[in-house]
């Protein structure tokens, strides 16, 4: 374990650590573009200059391994000057189109320029013209003029996705990123290139021009796209969710996530959601508040015989919710007819070697664990038989949130509609549900970004996550719904101390709130 001094601070690092890694880990600021923790070292941006005592020349931190007793410094005038000029070289051919560039606001060049800019441009020549708005594939658009040729995206396709679509073509200041002949950037991880692009050269077609990033807030949560459970950052504002980016977690997804997972924000937004409860009786559909519908449903459930009630669960809810709803059914309604709706049995154990898994539910393990805890062993065949024979009269269904991965949705809905009373807790709108006949309660539920909870991923790793924001305020969680269906009232959790203690200044609170809610200039998130 070599020890070194970084900007006067003693740091102990692992054998073979590069200077830049040690600096980033210890919270020192160091300018860089081409270096990325998840990729190999390219050493081409020449910005991560440091001065090492005993070496007359400044050198790059990304390709220098720390040795015992090294004295590293990147705050000297010499280093600052080198970085200033390095940055200027990046900028001389970079177009000044920040106003229409999607990266503006979270751009590496803008951030570095604030700190290391020369502020008096000396470039009086014409800028290099390159291709703009190049369609690289179904997900990504390239602007070569904005590109600073850090080669992160090229290295990503070489080293991580191993698809090798991208390359740098031509030489010198005519160099451009491009796809190899006959190929397009079309792999399951292509949008990671957009994340790692430090400038606005690669933009996502999905997010392009939809919002300026400073209108977005972000919060960490766990992807509900598959059983890998990648850690993600969801970006949202009051208009809804706009995009999803991976958040680093060494144990789960590293720096990356798949393109499929980036679509999970879509079904969360209001336009796809069930905003009000829909209740179908003899007179047809009526709209009512979610809580009222659940209360109505509770009357039906209470009136029903214990062995005529069944509960169908999908693996898209949190462990806490499962526990609440299953224990309600077991204890209140005295039924053990609780069934697990498995949507993709045949591809359950598929894995592409990087992140994507065939089990498209985030919490299969969690659901199984809860079912096991309550000793439930019912299989779908029993339900089918019960529905066919008419012994099961009242069915409560929960989910799924992400209907796109439930290919058998319409088919199952038809099967379930054989029940006399169908109480369906559902987050999104669905045609198949609206065309149901008989007594139906459609009760809106909250999605994974609207509640706290735990997912247990394929490896049994429990991941707790916090609520991001509320999209449909009326929607219920399964916990709330099961309380209401059991005929209880919702307990409003009372804070121990609703008012601020007197000795705390008001502005301290506001500052905390500001930090959390307001747009924060994210310099460190290159």
């Amino acid at each position: 374990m070599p020890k070194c001094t970084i900007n006067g601070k003693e740091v102990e690092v692992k054998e073979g650590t590069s200077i830049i890694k040690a600096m980033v880990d210890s919270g020192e600021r160091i300018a860089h573009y081409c270096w990325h923790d998840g990729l190999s070292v390219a050493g081409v941006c020449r910005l991560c200059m440091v001065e090492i005592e005993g070496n007359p020349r400044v050198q790059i931190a990304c390709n220098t391994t720390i040795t015992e007793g090294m004295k590293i410094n990147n705050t000297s005038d010499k280093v600052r000057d080198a970085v200033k000029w390095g940055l200027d070289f990046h900028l001389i051919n970079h177009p000044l189109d920040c106003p229409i560039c999607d990266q503006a606001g979270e751009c590496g060049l803008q951030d570095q320029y604030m700190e290391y800019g020369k502020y008096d441009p000396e470039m009086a020549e014409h800028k290099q013209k390159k291709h703009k708005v190049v369609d690289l594939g179904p997900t990504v658009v390239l602007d070569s003029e904005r590109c600073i040729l850090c080669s992160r995206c090229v290295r990503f396709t070489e080293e991580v996705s191993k698809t090798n679509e991208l390359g740098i073509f031509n030489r010198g200041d005519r160099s451009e990123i491009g796809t190899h002949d006959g190929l397009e950037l079309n792999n399951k991880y292509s949008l990671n290139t957009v994340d790692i692009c430090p400038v606005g050269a690669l933009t996502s077609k999905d997010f392009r021009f939809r919002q300026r990033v400073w209108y977005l807030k972000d919060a960490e949560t766990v992807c509900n796209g598959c059983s890998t459970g990648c850690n993600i950052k969801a970006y949202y504002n009051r208009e809804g969710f706009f995009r999803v980016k991976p958040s680093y977690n060494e144990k789960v997804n590293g720096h990356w996530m798949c393109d499929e997972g980036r679509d999970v924000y879509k079904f969360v937004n209001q336009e796809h959601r069930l905003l009000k409860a829909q209740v179908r009786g003899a007179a047809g559909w009526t709209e009512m508040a979610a809580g009222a519908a659940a209360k109505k449903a509770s009357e039906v459930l209470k009136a029903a015989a214990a062995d005529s009630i069944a509960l169908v669960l999908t693996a898209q809810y949190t462990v806490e919710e499962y526990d609440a709803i299953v224990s309600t059914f077991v204890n209140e309604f005295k039924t053990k007819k609780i069934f697990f709706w498995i949507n993709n049995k045949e591809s359950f154990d598929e894995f592409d070697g990087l992140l994507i898994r065939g089990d498209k539910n985030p919490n299969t393990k969690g659901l199984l664990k809860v079912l096991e805890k309550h000793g439930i062993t019912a299989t779908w065949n029993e339900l089918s038989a019960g529905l066919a024979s008419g012994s099961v009269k009242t069915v409560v269904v929960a989910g799924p949130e992400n209907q796109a991965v439930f290919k058998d949705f319409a088919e199952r809905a038809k099967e379930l509609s054989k029940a006399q009373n169908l109480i369906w807790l559902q987050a999104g709108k669905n045609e198949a549900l609206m065309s149901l006949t008989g007594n139906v309660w459609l009760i809106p539920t909250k999605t994974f970004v609207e509640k706290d909870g735990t997912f247990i991923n394929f490896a049994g790793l429990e991941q707790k996550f916090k609520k991001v924001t509320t999209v449909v305020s009326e929607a219920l969680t399964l916990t709330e719904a099961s309380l209401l269906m059991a005929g209880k009232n919702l307990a409003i959790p009372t804070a121990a101390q609703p008012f601020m203690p007197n000795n705390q200044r008001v502005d301290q609170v506001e500052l905390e709130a500001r930090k959390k809610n307001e747009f924060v200039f994210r310099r460190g998130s290159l």
Partner: protein
Amino acid sequence: MSVMQNNSEKSKWYLPGVLGGMSITMKHLLKNLFNQKKMMTLNYPEEKYEYSPRFKGNHVLTVKKDGSLRCTACMLCATNCPAECIKITAAEHNDHTVEKFPISYEIDILRCVFCGYCEEACPVDAIRLGPEWQTPGVNGANFIYDINHLAYRPNLKGGIQTHVDDEERLKSGL
């Protein structure tokens, strides 16, 4: 604000103050009677005052030579707007040299405080505050100005062009 009260003996004599005030009134009365051209008062609405072109009145979206909007939908005006009265929806343009343009640009003129920050923030001289200021209306809905009104209302006669065009900018390497 603190008020200083002068309680001296002299202040008890009110008549000189009243006469002084009356004399100013009389002076203006006589001036306006005998020199009506220089009279400050206007017979609005028969007479209307012409403000200077720099007056910050109603917004105008400028256009290019071909009549399309200059606005690139960068949303800096909306970001800068203290009254939050600008709402823009951006879209991708078919022409790659334009790239981004607004498919909707709305100003809620009732919220606007005419501070001119939008004009200052605009990097492409696409929004200006013009000399128009009389904008009466009877229906509240009319006060949300859309592109049609902001850029192509009849009194703009097909839109206001700015002095530099994109092509010229490209040619000169800007």
